[in-house]
């Protein structure tokens, strides 16, 4: 992130110095304002969802959901950490239900639980699944299309579903492949050094 941040920041500053120097500070302030607005929106979302998930946890509902997904999660994420698996399975089920707001707090909880084991593979994989998340029905886009007077606002639902499935699948497959290659290389290097 540091590299991307510095590069984008420096390049934009140079370009704006030439093109629109008076717009530089307002742009940054707007960025800050957007961050504050975003935090406020997130705050509302997380208060509701983390509240209801705390209730579900105290009822031991989440443990039941985790039991169902325990085995596939253990295999895919290569972790034995039961707290992490519980959060992961809740994250995945919320994603499938299309409740993105509830999925994120569980995802973050899982990432933090995995941090204790130093399991970066599982952290990254969970991040990839969420960042390419399968969205069953793209409600925002459909609303927008209907408002623009589309004759068939829903007809993009199926292509969207296929496209998100493709992105999730390729993301996961690509990451597993790359980390396998990396692992093999590390093993080879160890052999060479001993």
């Amino acid at each position: 992130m540091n590299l991307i941040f510095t590069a984008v920041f420096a390049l934009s500053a140079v370009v704006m110095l030439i093109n629109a120097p008076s717009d530089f500070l307002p742009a940054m302030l707007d960025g800050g304002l957007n961050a504050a607005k975003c935090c406020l929106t997130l705050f509302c979302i997380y208060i509701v969802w983390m509240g209801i998930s705390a209730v579900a946890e105290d009822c031991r509902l989440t443990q039941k959901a985790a039991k169902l997904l325990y085995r596939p999660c253990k295999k895919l994420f290569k972790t034995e950490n039961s707290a992490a698996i519980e959060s992961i399975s809740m994250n995945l089920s919320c994603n499938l239900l299309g409740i993105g707001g509830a999925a994120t707090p569980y995802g973050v909880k899982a990432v933090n639980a995995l941090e204790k084991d130093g399991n970066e593979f599982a952290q990254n994989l969970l991040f990839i699944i969420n960042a390419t998340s399968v969205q069953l029905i793209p409600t925002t886009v459909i609303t927008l299309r209907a408002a623009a007077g589309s004759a068939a606002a829903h007809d993009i639902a199926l292509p969207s579903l296929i496209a998100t499935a493709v992105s999730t699948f390729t993301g996961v497959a690509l990451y597993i492949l790359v980390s396998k290659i990396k692992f093999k290389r590390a093993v080879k290097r160890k052999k060479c050094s001993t």
Partner: protein
Amino acid sequence: MQYVIPAVFILVFIVAAFKRVNVFSSFSRGAGEAVKFVFSLLPLLACTFIMCELFERSHLSDALSKALSPALSFFGVPSELSKLILIKPFSGSGSLAYLSRIISDYGADSYIGRCACVLYGSSETVFYISVVYFAKCKNKRRILPIIVILAATLISTITACLLCRIM
């Protein structure tokens, strides 16, 4: 779909009533965790949003999308969409604004309009999500997963344009 969320809440409350869980105190405990969590995000989000704003306002995104469009049109992606593809990983609200402009310019049922909709629905704001997910991790340099996601998004973009032509 609008039935899912109320149904989930009702289910949780019914189970809570059966198990005699104190709903009020549990809910407020969760809300308290949300407060801590969002405050820990604010500084990181500020950096990301300032970067995104600069990226767009400096017209770097325009220049980059112009440079990218020949490569994208080689894969069958219309060049009008290159800016949307570029902005989407950075900013959700920015790309939504751009999507509505494309729809009003080209029409919702045109090929370009439909492609734009599928693209928008099938990709996520990667940088923002990476900030949220790795806020408490020691290792914040996660270049590899971001590259993997961007590559996967590109492949799904090409698929999306192909699908819009067939379907």
